[in-house]
């Protein structure tokens, strides 16, 4: 307590230095006045003599003044100011060093902040509401497979009304919507939407930005055509205009009144979902999801994501226990549907998703690798700066030695060094903070470009600022403290002083250790980066199985606009006829899914005599519904048989085309043409294989999609299809011409996913490409910084050994011998760094394995290439100083001291 009081008094006296000074002068004046008066009165001295005697007995005024200033810390302040000025002057004296520090530190710290920001927003994406930590998500849990799955509506209602486990429980399900804005001229567009229970925003505890949210009155089925917009939607599509509230927009062709706008930053509750733009009451499911007659029914599983607020005083485990108990009641009440259904409750404060979807290993790995790479880069940068500081220190040995011998305290010296490092680091820290807003664009590069927006929604928040600040402080401590301690320690000082003529001292040994660790860490980063790049090249080099050139894609969903099958078919034929009539068009077809679409689709197939593990004898395969001429229009390779024609229509015998991979797996050694396959099960409709096409890649992530079957669209209707147009010449330049031709068939129907096949293929690799370029950035940066460090050490060694080299040359050493002598040292450092680094890299590569598509963690090319690159760098970094050593004039060298 007394210490604290003292500290407060000291702080006050430092801050209020002016008033302390005044107080002191006043006290001294008072003292002298009283003493003078006393001497006049008691001893009868003259005022002049009394004043003189008073001053004498007081002692040296200035001495006491100084002592008091020291006592209250004024000296500390003075010295700090002097150090600051000195540091600024030194910095001006070596601008190159200052720029190097600013740039490397800025990049290093900034990168750490950005990486942390991405992970932060993934882990703690804040739901903009009060007390989000009380939010939890409820899933069914299969008691046998232990797999979580989403709820049916009736189970949800029972949990909400009867379980007593939650303080409010809401449900949602997502789907695409055709949005048309009647008062705007813009064409219809496809947006991502969310069907929510009317209590959704109430349970989340959100306030509308404008207007209002749904109320209990909006619950009745089918009678509440209301919509709430997301903040982003409101901003981008309605320019943030509040008058949109109360107006009517058209969703899937039906009018919906806009009630309000959700708070900014709310991207829906799902971690791995698209960001919904429009929220609609679940009672409107008939329009949002045409044909969804059973949406408000169902037990033992359904399509509802359920989120709730925990009751007062309850935590997640107790809420889960209560839910499991209630699920058991449901299981005994409805054994037919719920017998094996239990419950699981997960935190939802930062959004949630079905725990089964999350690939925690891949996520965790990418996060860990990101943190690892950025921290390692930071350490390399700090080691390099410490090294540069040590080199500068060596040049200041004289100065330091003089100051120490003149009685400068070591504490003072350390303080001065730290102040210098901080001043030098300050511009770097400023650069780092300035780079933080780049986190958004970096994220945009990282996340895949899909039809609707996804991502983490990285923004610069307090946590990121604090983290960046902490990294900055640690960095300055790391690169400032080592030279500071070194400078102040007596033993090292003698070694520094003695170094020009003796063997390398402790200081150069420390610098060698720093360089070796830099090189080792760089090798690790470089191996990681090379593996990513190689993985990308391997992926890209793979045959994608079709010709993506001169092809454009347009998607449409006629189902959302409530087309029935007959109208849908008329539309498909109409569009094909219109497009094929254009002179620029070589061919066109409908298909879904097509290669490098975001979607996949499984069908269950039954083939007589093919054993499977499932009870009903079926097995799953990827399937696409294609119109006639798809092989030609998509540039597939027809390996056997024929492709679909207009004759393969509803009334004709059912046919199908299979991929080479499928054919060789299901009918090894047999001719696949003429084989029969049933859809759905042993009693399903039977189709005859009429053709075999080459294996095509449908997605980027090395997915084993080669096993695929194709059904004719005319025999298996789908209401969501993609139009592929094969053009004469560049497809990109024709898109704007093709689009109005398609929309003319039905202007109210949104066309989406418009792109060229080349762009789609390239987009499929975007995540890998970004990972590779970011890893390459880290690796290159680390290597560059380390090579500068190595160069500095070798160059410094040359100037330290100038005399020795001079003697050797004078005694007849050839230039080759001198060069070998100098380069040997550098090569040894490089070799040690390489060996240590390769060891570490082997470990990192094994951990990275899950992120490398089609590449072994022990990829021989990578592990051969990196040492070669390092050898070249080491050679260059040592050759330049070595050449300088060779050019030394022996006479001048001997005189150098």
């Amino acid at each position: 307590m007394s210490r604290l009081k003292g500290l407060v008094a000291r702080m006050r006296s430092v801050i209020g230095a002016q008033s302390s000074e005044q107080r002191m002068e006043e006290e001294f004046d008072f003292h002298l006045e009283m003493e003078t008066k006393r001497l006049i009165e008691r001893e009868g001295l003259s005022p002049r003599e009394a004043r003189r005697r008073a001053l004498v007995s007081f002692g040296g005024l200035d001495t006491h003044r100084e002592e008091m200033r020291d006592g209250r810390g004024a000296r500390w302040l003075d010295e700090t100011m002097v150090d600051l000025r000195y540091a600024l002057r030194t910095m001006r004296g070596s601008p190159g060093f200052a720029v190097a520090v600013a740039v490397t530190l800025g990049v290093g710290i900034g990168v750490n902040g950005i990486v942390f920001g991405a992970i932060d927003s993934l882990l703690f994406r804040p739901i903009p509401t009060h007390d989000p930590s009380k939010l939890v998500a409820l899933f069914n849990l299969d008691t046998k497979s232990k797999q979580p799955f989403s709820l049916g509506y009736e189970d949800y209602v029972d949990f909400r009304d009867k379980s007593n486990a939650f303080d409010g429980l809401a449900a949602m399900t997502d789907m695409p919507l055709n949005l048309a804005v009647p008062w705007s001229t813009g064409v219809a567009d496809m947006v991502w939407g969310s069907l929510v229970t009317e209590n959704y925003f109430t349970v989340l505890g959100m306030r509308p930005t404008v207007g209002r949210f749904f109320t209990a009155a909006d619950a009745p089925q089918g009678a509440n055509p209301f919509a709430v917009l997301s903040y982003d939607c409101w901003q981008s599509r309605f320019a943030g205009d509040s008058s949109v509230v109360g107006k009517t927009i058209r969703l899937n062709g039906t009018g919906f009144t806009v009630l309000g706008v959700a708070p900014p930053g709310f991207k829906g509750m799902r971690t791995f979902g698209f960001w919904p733009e429009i929220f609609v009451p679940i009672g409107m499911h008939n329009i949002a999801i045409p044909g969804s007659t059973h949406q408000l029914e169902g037990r033992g599983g359904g399509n509802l994501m359920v989120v709730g607020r925990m009751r007062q005083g309850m935590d997640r485990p107790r809420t889960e226990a209560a839910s499991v108990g209630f699920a058991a009641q449901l299981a005994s009440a409805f054994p037919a549907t719920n017998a094996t259904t239990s419950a699981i409750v997960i935190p939802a404060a930062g959004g949630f998703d079905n725990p089964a979807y999350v690939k925690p290993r891949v996520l965790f790995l990418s996060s860990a690798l990101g943190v690892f790479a950025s921290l390692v880069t930071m350490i390399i940068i700090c080691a390099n700066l410490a090294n540069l500081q040590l080199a500068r220190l060596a040049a200041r040995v004289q100065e330091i030695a003089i100051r120490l011998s003149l009685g400068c305290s070591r504490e003072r010296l350390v303080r001065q060094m730290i102040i210098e490092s901080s001043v030098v680091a300050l511009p770097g820290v400023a650069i780092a903070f300035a780079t933080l807003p780049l986190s958004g664009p970096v994220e945009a590069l990282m996340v895949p470009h899909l039809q609707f927006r996804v991502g983490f929604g990285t923004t610069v928040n307090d946590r990121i600022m604090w983290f960046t600040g902490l990294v900055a402080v640690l960095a300055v401590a790391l690169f400032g403290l080592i030279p500071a301690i070194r400078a102040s320690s007596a033993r090292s000082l003698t070694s520094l002083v003695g170094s020009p003529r003796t063997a390398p001292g402790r200081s150069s040994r420390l610098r060698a250790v720093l360089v070796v660790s830099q090189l080792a860490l760089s090798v690790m980063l470089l191996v990681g980066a090379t593996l990513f790049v190689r993985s990308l090249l391997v992926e890209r080099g793979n045959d994608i199985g079709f010709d993506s050139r001169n092809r454009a894609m347009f998607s449409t969903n006629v189902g959302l606009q409530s087309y029935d099958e007959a109208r849908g078919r008329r539309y498909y034929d109409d569009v094909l006829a219109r497009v094929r009539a254009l002179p620029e068009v070589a061919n066109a077809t409908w298909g879904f899914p097509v290669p490098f679409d975001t979607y996949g689709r499984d069908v269950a197939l039954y083939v007589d005599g093919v054993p499977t593990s499932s009870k009903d004898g079926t097995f799953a395969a990827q399937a696409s519904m294609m119109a006639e001429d798809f092989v030609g229009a998509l540039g597939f390779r027809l390996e056997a048989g024929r492709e679909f024609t207009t004759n393969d229509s509803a009334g004709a015998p059912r046919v199908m085309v299979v991929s080479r991979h499928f054919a060789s797996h299901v009918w090894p050694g047999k001719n696949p043409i003429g084989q029969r396959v049933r859809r759905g099960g042993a009693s399903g409709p039977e189709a005859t294989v009429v053709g075999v096409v080459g294996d095509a890649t449908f997605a980027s992530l090395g997915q084993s999609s080669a096993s695929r079957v194709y059904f004719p669209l005319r025999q298996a209707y789908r209401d969501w299809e993609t139009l592929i147009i094969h053009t004469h010449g560049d497809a990109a330049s024709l898109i704007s011409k093709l689009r109005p031709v398609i929309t003319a068939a039905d202007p109210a129907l949104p066309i989406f996913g418009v792109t060229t096949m080349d762009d789609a293929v390239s987009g499929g690799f975007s995540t890998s490409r970004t990972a590779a370029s970011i890893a390459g950035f880290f690796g290159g940066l680390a290597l560059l910084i380390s090579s500068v460090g190595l160069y500095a050490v070798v160059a410094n060694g040359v100037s330290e050994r100038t005399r020795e080299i001079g003697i050797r040359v004078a005694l007849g050493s050839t230039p080759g011998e001198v060069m070998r002598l100098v380069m040997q040292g550098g090569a040894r450092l490089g070799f040690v760094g390489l060996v240590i680094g390769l060891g570490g890299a082997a470990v990192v590569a094994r951990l990275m394995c899950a992120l490398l598509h089609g590449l072994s963690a022990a990829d021989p090319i990578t592990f051969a290439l990196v040492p070669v690159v390092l050898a070249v760098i080491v050679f260059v970094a040592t050759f330049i100083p070595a050449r300088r050593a060779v050019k030394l004039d022996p006479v001048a060298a001997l005189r150098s001291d």
Partner: protein
Amino acid sequence: MAPHPQESDALRGSIDLLVLKALALEPMHGWGIGLRIQQISRGRLEVNQGSLYPALQRLEHRGWVESDWQSTENNRRARYYSLTKLGRKALGEEVDKWKRFAATMAIVLES
């Protein structure tokens, strides 16, 4: 006493102790403290008066004394120092320490 600001710790300690002792009776300004020390020691301790002030500052930082502006009998503004509770306790301890030290010194010197 030595005019050099870097007095030995023992000397500093003894000034601190004298100041504390002088303040034990009643709050007093710096000049008064010097006077009182002279009086108590019957003039035998000639304290360098100026060095009282760094001592007072030290004691204040340590939380043993506190100070504020007051008026003297002649209506002159002066900084008055008084012992804190902590300072009173410290005085007792410091006196004990000093006595033990003096006794030890006496034993050593008289043997």
